[in-house]
């Protein structure tokens, strides 16, 4: 029996046939319990024969292929049923010479990666002319590889150009006027101010830059925001969401399939040490994990649209030196409630309707918190590769006097579903790709920043928005004041003997 070394985790045990037997047993047991969705549907994909799900491999008695790609022993004990095939792109459309100009223009409008469409069209011609299957397969695989960097189409109404071209859809709430000089959330919540809600200083040596601690009432507000958001999504008539608890660690293929780069200098994706743990990335948004949840599934038309939401931790390796992004505006780790939707593509407008629904929900949520915000129809350069259309919401941040993004929702049409192979059985019996829609319901740190800065009082206290009061402790708490028993700490590094004496 040949077995590949899977990282250092490799264990001799696996050489014993006994464990193989166990493995297949557990697999069979597994099959019997939960069939649906576990095994990738045998997609008849004539040219790519990479569907090596474990089923086949266990039958053949080799484990090798199915384990490749997940180089972690943890997996050796689990049925490997997840596998992402190469994207099933709409080659007929993308490589039709008639569409060349439109696509080229779209790429330019979106400032996407340049793609040599002429070369691709030529490849397609070769593909059609090719006589044998092997040749065809090779050509198609290189077409897919190159063509997968073509971005999604853009909605005809999306403004063309850069950030400044964003179209204002709606202005919500009232801008709060201050008759005193308002403070930034960092100063307002620091230990020095007495409220002691936030620690962002002296954290570099232990947890790194741009990390933060929410303390006391601020940590409670984080929980309160979740408790405020989730029921609003779950308790809707007919259109309620299903809550899903998602994994925060994902295989890079899933993240790539959702349209995010996991390698390269500018990637925002954290990766675990491959030598120690195999190929694992940290999820940047629950959208990725939910995409993985639906991957390789074929849904029934009457199951659609599906609305799911998740509360998860998000990890983003992004940096910024902009002054207004200090504090908890742009951070590496945060909690977020995400909405995700899967729709059919029968009339072609289902996903647009769901996007509209998401935006209405978001508006309702932020209105309830008393924020002053604007809704923007984002221009082409801001869309990123997967989005067909994207709306951002920006809240007014009074101290730095700028609009800060608090949420974003996009319609990705079939961009993600073609890469994740999410399909549905259409009315005509054929299998079609679903459309995916995603939106932020609650990005905690930014909402806290907006709430705290906007509802600060002259005496340095903070009024809690009414909608959150019932989730605070004690229930109904209205104002965040200095704690009775302050909890003081002082960093060593900035401490003279004199200061220490005074501290005591």
């Amino acid at each position, binding site marked *: 029996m040949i077995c590949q*070394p899977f990282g250092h985790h490799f264990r001799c045990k696996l050489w014993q046939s006994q464990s193989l037997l166990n493995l297949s047993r557990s697999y069979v047991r597994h099959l019997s319990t939960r069939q649906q969705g576990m095994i990738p549907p045998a997609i008849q994909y004539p040219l790519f024969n990479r569907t090596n799900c474990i089923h086949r491999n266990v039958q053949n008695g080799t484990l090798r292929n199915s384990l490749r790609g997940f180089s972690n022993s943890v997996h050796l004990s689990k049925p490997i049923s997840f596998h992402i095939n190469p994207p099933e792109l709409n080659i007929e459309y993308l490589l039709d010479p008639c569409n060349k100009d439109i696509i080229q223009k779209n790429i330019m409008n979106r400032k996407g990666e340049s793609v040599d469409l002429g070369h691709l069209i030529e490849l397609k011609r070769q593909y059609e002319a090719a006589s044998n299957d092997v040749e065809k397969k090779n050509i198609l695989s290189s077409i897919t590889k190159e063509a997968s960097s073509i971005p999604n189409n853009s909605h005809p109404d999306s403004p063309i150009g850069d950030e400044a071209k964003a179209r204002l859809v709606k202005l919500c709430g009232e801008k709060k006027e201050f008759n005193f000089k308002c403070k930034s959330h960092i100063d307002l919540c620091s230990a020095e101010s007495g409220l002691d809600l936030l620690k962002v200083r002296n954290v570099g040596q232990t947890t790194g830059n741009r990390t933060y601690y929410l303390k006391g009432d601020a940590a409670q507000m984080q929980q309160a925001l979740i408790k405020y958001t989730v029921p609003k999504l779950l308790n809707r008539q007919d259109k309620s969401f299903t809550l899903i608890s998602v994994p925060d660690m994902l295989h890079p293929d899933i993240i790539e399939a959702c349209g995010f780069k996991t390698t390269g200098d500018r990637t925002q994706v954290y990766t675990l040490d491959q030598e120690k743990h195999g190929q694992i990335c940290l999820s940047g948004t629950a959208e990725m994990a939910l995409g993985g949840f639906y991957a390789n599934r074929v849904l029934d038309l009457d199951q659609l649209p599906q609305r799911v939401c998740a509360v998860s931790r998000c990890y983003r390796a992004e940096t910024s030196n902009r002054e207004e992004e200090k504090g908890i505006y742009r951070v590496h780790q945060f909690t977020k409630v995400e909405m995700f939707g899967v729709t059919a593509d029968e009339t072609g407008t289902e996903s647009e309707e769901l996007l509209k629904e998401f935006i209405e929900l978001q508006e309702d949520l932020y209105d309830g918190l008393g924020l002053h915000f604007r809704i923007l129809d984002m221009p082409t350069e801001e869309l990123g590769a997967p989005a067909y259309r994207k709306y951002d919401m920006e809240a007014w941040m009074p101290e730095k006097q700028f609009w800060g993004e608090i949420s974003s929702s996009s319609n990705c049409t079939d961009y993600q579903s073609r890469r994740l192979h999410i399909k549905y059985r259409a009315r005509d019996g054929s299998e079609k790709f679903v459309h995916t829609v995603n939106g932020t319901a609650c990005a905690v740190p930014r909402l806290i920043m907006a709430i705290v800065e906007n509802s600060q009082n002259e005496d340095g206290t903070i009024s809690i928005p009414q909608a959150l009061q019932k989730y605070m402790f004690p229930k109904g708490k209205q104002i965040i004041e200095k704690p009775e028993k*302050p909890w003081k700490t002082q960093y060593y590094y900035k401490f003279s003997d004199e200061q220490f004496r005074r501290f005591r």
Partner: protein
Amino acid sequence: MKMSISPTGLYLHILKNAQGLIGTKCMLSPFKKMTFQFCIRSSCSVSSLYLHKNMTSLLSTNILVAQLSQKKTKASSSSHHLKSVRNLSRYALPPQNESKFNQGLGSLWSSLNVHKSGKYFCSSALSSIGNQASMRFSSSALHVRKGYPSSQKIVKPDVDVDAVLSEENIPKLRENINRRKMRLDIDILMQDYEKFREVRDVFQKVETEKQDITKKVKLLVGQFETTGKTSEAVKRMKTLTKRGRELREELSGLKDQWLDIEDKIMIQVLELPNWLDICTKEHENILLEHHKTCSSADQFIKEMEPPISYKDHVELASRLPDGNIHFRAVSPTAYYLEGRLAEAELSLTDHFSDQLLEAGFTPLSCPDMFKSVVVEGCGVDTEDPEQVLTLSCRGDLEDGDSPDSESSSTKTQPGSAGGPEWSITYHLTGVSHMAATAYITKNYIWEKSLPAKWYSVGRHYQPAKEDLNGPSLFNTCQSSRVQLCAATVNCSESDIMYQEMVDLLQRLYTPKTTSEIFPYGRMRSVPAPQLAMWESCRNEFQLWSPSLRKFITVAAVSKSNDFISKRLMIKHSGGHHVHMVHGYVADVTKLIACLLEQSQTKNGEVSLPLFQSFVEMK
């Protein structure tokens, strides 16, 4: 790091590396004597080690470092060597081969030592050749060798080597290690310590003499100015300066030796475990079991014996009308809780956090990633992939708010092959005992704000343990946790706090009246061999899993006293180290699984009010 190496694993690993990194031709034939090249590419040079192995007597391992090519290898490649040596140490080695293997590594090590170029070589303590006990190849984030960039020196652990290794302490140390069944050899440590003292004595003697001479020279110079140069004085001056020069040379010769032995000792001493508490026993002690108080327990006790096959939580969940657990291989042990179960996760978290708020705990939301120094300070081996998840280096994210290093040449260079040498490693643990500890690392706490109690809710991450029982929520890399931490002024305060937390656990999991329905579980004190090195004692609350027919730990409280605070410079304003208590009131993920399993009826449905009453009590 415990030494455990499997020949095959090692063999394959080397092969993999050799193939992966350079693609050198390797012959893999398990029964023949073989030689292959093991290359490591570094940014500037390629150096290679030849590893020669005789597979018939596995690891009689003449790990011959036949060639360490390019004698002028720079520091960077040496550290790559070290990294590879470390990698070698991650395999399970049958005991009989261990010493031989160690010999091999020892010689490998000494050749690496020869090639290290001065101060930029990673500090490491490899015990003498033939050491049969545990060894550690890694550098320490807590103890950083003198002369290294100050950016690496985050803390200065307060560890008094002489006190720890004093005559009267040694028997206690031995007893501690024996009781914990740890594989640390005190004799070898003591041998090193003898050497350490010798070198230190010599070093100090020379240094005092040097200082003495400097003083004398100064005096003479003063004399020159007042009384002018007399021939006698000039002569004395000459002998003094000559002696001074000799001493300086001697000192610089000794310095490396001194630093080496200091590293060796410090790293070993930092590996010594915390003292055991008096209530820690060798065998587990059941403190409380819900036999009589728990109405659902009766049923389980009755049914524990007859071989009715209980369904596991995964199967039960699939029968729920409005919830499910899905396992998808999107990452190791990845699971999705759907509908009712995901809601249960949130509402259970809320339930516990409400209880904690009422008990006077302060909520704290913490980062999920920690630098090695915190992780090691908290007594977790940063090099061991089975203890903690490590992120790959991202040097470019550092924009240096820490005091910067002395030399720009060693600064991190993102994207350079093999990773930057001084890059900072982060570890992902999420909500864990490190979270609140990182908050107060290198801090003074105001004495009046003690005792302080915090709790955090969120995701906890840890490497999953291998098991072949198929997917289960009992073995996951990710779980939801409600974590506790407390800091107190002194030992007796910490004992009180510990008891308070244990009582809290008991209260949370025990019904107040007999009519309440509660899951069947027990409280136990953890025996010494199962404690982590930072714990002095631990109490756990466990729930019964009918499908596995064993108890699953869903909550725990551990006492660490000042072990962690000494390593991470956490003091209170009275000038002493704080004493800490850590714990978690609920591993919500496991709790859900246990509740589901205990809620099953004979026909395999989940309909007992237990699940509902526990999940939906708010």
